[in-house]
C-alpha cells in the first residue's frame, strides 16, 4: 500500500504522519526574490569556498536583536549584511500622537541603559521651542543624574565586552556596580531603569535624603571598586591580545562614517559635544576629554573606563556647586509651543544623541526625529568586519557599544 508523495517532500523520520519539504533544512539566508540592488547581487553570489552563516536575531551575543548574515571563507569573514529592525517599536510615530509630556516616557526605552540621556534630548528641543529658561538647580540635577547614568552605561559596556570575549566574571561585577547606581537613581526618580524623570522645564523631584546618602556612600568607594573590577581585564594578556589591533578605525574613516562619542575619541580626535557645543551647565564644570590614538577595540574600552573617572569628577563638582532654587520652571499645564523646529544634541554615553522636534502649534508634536548614535555606529561594522575571524565579529560589535533599542527605535 504505497502512497505517492507530492514532489519534493519526504516523510519525517520522527512522525510518519508528517510531510516535510526536501529543502526544508537547507536554509540559506538568500532572499527568494532576485537581487534588487548591485550590493545585494554582490553579496548574494558565493565565490569559491565561501558559505553563509546567519547570526540570527536570537543569539547569545548580539546586543539585542541584531541579525547579521556573514559570508565566511572558513573562519574568515569576507562580507556581511546586517539586517536591522527586529526591535522597531514605532517610537517616532507614537510620539506624533502623544502630548509633549507623554513623548518623554515614549522616548525612554530607546537606549534603555542610559534612559536619562534619551529623555534629555527631546526635553532640550522642546525647551528651545517654548523658550523656557530651566532653573539652575534643575540643570545641575540633570547633569548629576546624567553622569551617574553614564557611569552605569559604561560599567555595563565593560561587562558585556568581556562576556563577548569569553570572560564570565566581569559582567557580574559590572552588574553589581550598576545595581548600586540604579538603586540610587531609584531613590531619586522612583524607577530603576526607564526613569521618566526629566520634565519640560526641569525635573520631576528634588534631591532627597535617601539619594544623597546612597550617593555619598557609593562615591567613597567608587574609584577603588572600579579600579578593582577593571584590573582583571586590563592586565590580562589574553584579553589584551584579543582586543588590541582589532577593528582599527582611523580618524578619517570615523569622520566619513559620522561616528561620534568614545568611538571617535579613541581614534585621536578630541570631539565632545559638551565642549564643542556646550549645553546645560557644562561650561561651568571642569573636566577633561579623554582621548586615545590607537583606534582599536582596546583603546575604546580603556577610553570608556577613563570617561567613568571623569564622570566621577563631574559628579563631585555638581555636588559641591549645587545651587538652591526651584527644580521646575513655571509652565502651563497644556503646552502649545509656537510652530517651528528645534534641534538639540547632547553627548550620550555612545555618542551624539540628537532630537529634532517640529511643532505645528498644537498640543502634539508634528514630528520628533531621533538621531541615535548606535544606529550610525552600527554602519561601521560593514567596513570593519571583513578580513577578521568569526570570533572577532562579536568583539568588534561589542566594542562599538550599540544598543539595539536605539538602533531600531
Amino acid at each position: 500500500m504505497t502512497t505517492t508523495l507530492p514532489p519534493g517532500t519526504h516523510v519525517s523520520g520522527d512522525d510518519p504522519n508528517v510531510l516535510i519539504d526536501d529543502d526544508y533544512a537547507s536554509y540559506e539566508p538568500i532572499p527568494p526574490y532576485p537581487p534588487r540592488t548591485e550590493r545585494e547581487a554582490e553579496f548574494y553570489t558565493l565565490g569559491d569556498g565561501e558559505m553563509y552563516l546567519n547570526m540570527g536575531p536570537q543569539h547569545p551575543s548580539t546586543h539585542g536583536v541584531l541579525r547579521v548574515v556573514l559570508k565566511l571563507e572558513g573562519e574568515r569573514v569576507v562580507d556581511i549584511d546586517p539586517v536591522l529592525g527586529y526591535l522597531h517599536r514605532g517610537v517616532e510615530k507614537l510620539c506624533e500622537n502623544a502630548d509633549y509630556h507623554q513623548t518623554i516616557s515614549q522616548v525612554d526605552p530607546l537606549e534603555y541603559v542610559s534612559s536619562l540621556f534619551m529623555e534629555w534630548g527631546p526635553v532640550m528641543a522642546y525647551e528651545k521651542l517654548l523658550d523656557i529658561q530651566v532653573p539652575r538647580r534643575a540643570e545641575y540635577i540633570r547633569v548629576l543624574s546624567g553622569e551617574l547614568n553614564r557611569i552605569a552605561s559604561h560599567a555595563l559596556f565593560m561587562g558585556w565586552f568581556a562576556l563577548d570575549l569569553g570572560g564570565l566574571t566581569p559582567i557580574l561585577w559590572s552588574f553589581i556596580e550598576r545595581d548600586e547606581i540604579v538603586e540610587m537613581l531609584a531613590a531619586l526618580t522612583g524607577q530603576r531603569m526607564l526613569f521618566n524623570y526629566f520634565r519640560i522645564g526641569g525635573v520631576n523631584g528634588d534631591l532627597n535624603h535617601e539619594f544623597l546618602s546612597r550617593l555619598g556612600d557609593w562615591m567613597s568607594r567608587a574609584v577603588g571598586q572600579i579600579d578593582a573590577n577593571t584590573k582583571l581585564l586590563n592586565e590580562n594578556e589574553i584579553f589584551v591580545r584579543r582586543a588590541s589591533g582589532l577593528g582599527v578605525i582611523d580618524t578619517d574613516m570615523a569622520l566619513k562614517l559620522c561616528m561620534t562619542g568614545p568611538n571617535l575619541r579613541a581614534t585621536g580626535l578630541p570631539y565632545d559635544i559638551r565642549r564643542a557645543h556646550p549645553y546645560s551647565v557644562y561650561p561651568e564644570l571642569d573636566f577633561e576629554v579623554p582621548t586615545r590614538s590607537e583606534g582599536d577595540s582596546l583603546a575604546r574600552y580603556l577610553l570608556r573606563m577613563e570617561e567613568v573617572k571623569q564622570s566621577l569628577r563631574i559628579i563631585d563638582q555638581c555636588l559641591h556647586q549645587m545651587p538652591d532654587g526651584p527644580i521646575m520652571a513655571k509652565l502651563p499645564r497644556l503646552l502649545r509651543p509656537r510652530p517651528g523646529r528645534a534641534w538639540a544634541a547632547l553627548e550620550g554615553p555612545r555618542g551624539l544623541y540628537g532630537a529634532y522636534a517640529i511643532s505645528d502649534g498644537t498640543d502634539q508634536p508634528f514630528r520628533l526625529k531621533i538621531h541615535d548614535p548606535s544606529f550610525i555606529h552600527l554602519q561601521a561594522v560593514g567596513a570593519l568586519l571583513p578580513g577578521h575571524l568569526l570570533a572577532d565579529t562579536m568583539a568588534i560589535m561589542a566594542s562599538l557599544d550599540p544598543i539595539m533599542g536605539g538602533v531600531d527605535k
Partner: protein
Amino acid sequence: MSAVSRTWDQLTLPGKFLAIVVPILAVLTTGLILVIVLFGGAIWNVILANLPVVRFIAAATILLLLSPPIAFVIIYMEMKVIALMNLRLGPDRVGPWGTLLSTVHGLKVLMKEDFTPTRADPVVFTWAPVVVFSTAILSALVLPFAPGLFGQDLNLGLLYFFAIGGLTVVGLLMGGWASFNKYSLLGGLRSAAQIVSYEIPLTLSVVGLIILAGTMSLNQIVQQQAGWFVNWFVIRQPLGFLIFVIAATAEANRTPFDLTEADSEIVAGFATEYSGMRFGFFFFAEYIGVFIISALTTVLYLGGWNAPIVLPHIVWAIDIGSLSGWILAIVAIVPVLGTVLLGAPFFLFRSRTRWWVALIVGFVLFNVLAVGLFGLWAYISFDWVAGLFWFVGKTFALVFVFVWLRGTLPRVRIDQLMGFAWKWLLPAALLNLFVTAFAFVVVH
C-alpha cells in the same frame, strides 16, 4: 472493569511504582539466591580462573557507575565556585547549599525530548556522544586510584591513555559534521584543529618524565613518587608540568581554550543540535574529561596516591574478637549514650531547643563522629583508603584550579590558540625533553 484494573486505579503514584518494582525485585532476588546456592561454587571457580577478564569487567562497571556522581560533583563545584567568584551565591535552594542541583539537572536532561534534525545523518548523529563518552571512560581504566585500585596495570599505560584520549576528537567531529548545521560544523572543525595541535606538546612534555621514571606504567610512576613531596615529579620537571597543564586544558576544551563550545560566538558549537540525554552525554563527557586530566596530572606529577609527608605507621591495637560478649552491650548502649550526651548541651544551654530536637541534633552529631572515627580506622588500617583519600583530594584540588581558570580568563581566538601551541608550547616541550635527557645522561 476487572478487579485488577479497579485496584490499580485506586493506587497512588508511589503505590503504582511499588506494585511494579517490588514483585520484580522479589523475583530477581530469589533467582539470584537460588543461583548462588546451586551454582555458587562453580561460578567462583570460573571467576578465579578468568581473573583478569573479571577484573576488567568489574573496573569498567564501577567506573561507569561512578562517573555520573563524579560528574555531578564537578558540575556543582563549577557552578558554585564560579558563582562565588562572581560575588553571587549560585545554586542555593535545591539541597543544602544547592548540592542536589546537578542531580536534578541530570534527571531533567533525561526527560527532555530527544530528536534528530531532519537532514542530520542519523547513525553518525546518534553515535557521536557515545564515542565521546566511551573514550573518556576507557581512558580512565588505567588510572591508579589507590595501591591496588586500578583497572589494568598496562606497561604502556601512558601511551594507551593518550591514544584513547585522542579518539575524543573523532566523536566531536562526528557530532559537528552530522548535525547539518554550520555552527556545529565550525565547532567540530575548531575542536579538531585544537585537539590535534595540543596533542603534540602534551605527549612531548611527558617524555621527559618517562625518561626519568624509566617506565610508562602509571602504577609504577606513582610508586616512584613515594615518600616526601620532594620526590614528586613536579619538583624535577617544573616546565613539563606547566606545559602539561596548559596542553591538558586545551585537550579537555576548557577555558581559556573552550572555543569549540564558545557560547558567545557559535551558540553551543558541536552540541548545538543535541538535546536531551545526548547532550547530557556530551556534558558528562566534558566534566569526566576534567576529572580525568586532573587525575592524570596528579598521578604523573603530584604523587598520585602518596601522602605528601611520611606518616609513622600506626597499628590499630584493639582486637575486636576478644571482646565477644561485650560487643552486644556496646552496640546497644553506645549509640543511645552518644546521642544523649551530644544532644544534652543543646538542650541545656539553649532554651529554645525542644527535647526531641536536641535528640535529633545529638543523633546527627553522633553519626558524624562515628563516621569520622570509622574513616580514621579505615585510613590507618587499609592503605588503599589512605591512598584513595589523597588521590581524590589532590584531584579535586586540581579540578578547583581548572574551574578557577574558567571563571577568570577570557577565551583565545583560534589562530592565537594554534600559534601558541606550535610556536611556544612545542619548542618549550622540546627544550624540556632535551634538558632532561642531557641531565639524565650526565648524571648516569
